[in-house]
């Protein structure tokens, strides 16, 4: 296990090399957040209730999506997996006693942990300036449920994004565009743009039979106390079920991919 801890440490060092890049990335995230925030704040000037959400509920959602985007809906390092398969760089890992999927997971976690620290500080500053009314959960049960849901969602998104990038084993030429497109879909269906229950109810119902709402929508719903008690437990069990299933699919695809892998680039 110690080897993965070293991967974590080296990844952090690597993040620090690109200071300007990192700051620009933070600014980009903050701009995106402000756009969505002011859009919803504007809508609530003339409306008290939109799609069944009042202002504090919606603004809390927007704040939380900002955090979830950093923590869950991003693959800052493992973005490279498709490219590495395509150009053969993955060979470097395959000859070593190191798990490729674990390796990139740790590298993502390293990058995400750094980003989340900054995101929390940024949100706190924004909150100080704008002083919006937010919903903060109080019961330890809710907080525990939320943290569990977030951990599951983080793993789930990682596996899903790997699964998408493994397409490169079969079509090494053009995976970037395809995986980008697929992941935008995933982000939207996960509730990363707007809360899913503002969609027509048949779509919302349908989405519950997919793994996507477990990524962002349900964790935030738990945080804002829309889901509690037995329903909370049911949601956590279902997301665990998805995690196990997607894990198995990813492993299977990985093994099949390695058989067709041709170690390009000489």
């Amino acid at each position, binding site marked *: 296990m*110690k*080897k993965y*801890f*070293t*991967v974590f440490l*080296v990844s952090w*060092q*690597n993040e620090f*090399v*690109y200071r300007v890049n990192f700051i620009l990335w933070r600014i980009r995230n903050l701009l995106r957040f402000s756009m969505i925030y002011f859009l919803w704040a504007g809508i609530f000037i003339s409306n008290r209730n939109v799609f069944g959400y009042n202002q504090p509920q919606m603004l809390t959602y927007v704040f939380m999506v900002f955090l979830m985007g950093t923590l869950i809906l991003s693959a800052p390092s493992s973005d490279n997996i498709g490219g590495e398969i395509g150009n*053969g*760089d993955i*060979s*470097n890992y*395959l*000859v*070593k*006693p*190191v798990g490729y999927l674990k390796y990139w997971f740790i590298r993502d976690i390293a990058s995400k942990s750094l980003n989340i620290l900054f995101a929390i500080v940024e949100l706190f500053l924004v909150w100080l300036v704008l002083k919006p009314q937010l919903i903060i959960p109080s019961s330890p049960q809710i907080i525990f449920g939320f943290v569990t849901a977030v951990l599951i969602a983080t793993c789930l998104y990682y596996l899903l994004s790997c699964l998408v990038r493994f397409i490169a084993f079969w079509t090494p030429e053009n995976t970037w565009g395809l995986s980008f497109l697929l992941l935008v879909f995933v982000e939207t269906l996960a509730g990363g743009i707007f809360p899913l229950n503002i969609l027509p109810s048949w779509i919302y119902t349908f989405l519950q039979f997919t793994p996507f709402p477990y990524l962002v929508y349900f964790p935030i719903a738990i945080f804002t106390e829309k889901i509690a008690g037995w329903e909370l437990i049911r949601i956590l069990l279902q997301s665990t079920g998805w995690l196990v299933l997607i894990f198995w699919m990813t492993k299977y695809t990985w093994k099949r991919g*390695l*058989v067709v*892998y*041709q*170690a390009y*680039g*000489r």
Partner: protein
Amino acid sequence: MNMSVISVKGLSKYYQVHQKEPGLAGSIKSLFNRKYYDVKAVDNVSFEINEGELVGFIGPNGAGKTTTLKTLSGLLYPTKGEVSVLGHTPWKREPAFQKQFALVMGQKNQLWWDLPAMESFILNREIYEVPKARFEETLSELSDLLEVQDLLKVQVRKLSLGERMKMELIAALIHSPKVLFLDEPTIGLDVVAQKKMRDFIKAYNIKYKATIILTSHYMDDVKELCKRIIIIDKGTKLFDGDLDEIVRKFADHKLLSMVLDKELNRRQIEHLSALGGVKEYAYPKLILQVPRENSNKVAAKLLQSYPVADLNIEESALEDIVREVFTGKDVA
């Protein structure tokens, strides 16, 4: 006494490749109707390599050298055949096997570009679970041999190609592998750096009794390092044996290389072909290829009836011998 470390029996690797006609029209056509055909990258190759051997793998581009090395490293699954390296089947990728071998590809890098090479070494130390004391020892040994002690803490991107290759080599050897596959380790290096690299490989081979397979386009690498060579072309093995043997077997010609005083007239040029094959004629330089047993006689004749200022009798270059093997002389 000799134990075979690498054993390859009837190894074949076929690829399915689709053919695209040139141009955009061809691209569009290939979207709908793809013609596939099998490329035999490696076809029924067998060999055994013993502990401590340093074997040169030679062949033109696309001969199947790299494919063979990739299969031996466990990167590729073979289409047919059996492979055993250190008693393991490579493509099962067992950690016990991976801890004992290394693959170095001259054009691939594993070092972290933005960090000093030392960080990559430390990461490899953890990945290969090398004890700290042994790591320090190996590192100081390798960096002494390669003369890079001062560069360990310099960002990799700021190193020259030669320095980087040395670091790559250290990263690959930090776990003291018993089996080493070197794919073009001297590619792109200048003459001095090539020499350094060769000396190092030789020293490593002797010191650690390491079994090494080396591919290279530079015949100097092979000549200096390898006692035994395996020649493959178009996926099949053409020759497997001592380097000396191939020179004896195929170098049945010698080269007469001359510097002329005067340009040859037409009659003299015509007459040359009766003496031997003209390899090169660019006044004042003339190189003739003549059968080994005739070389003295022909040389005497040339000195007598041609305006020769200087004449040397030389062995064919290894490059030429190998080329002859490739162009279809019967080898078996």
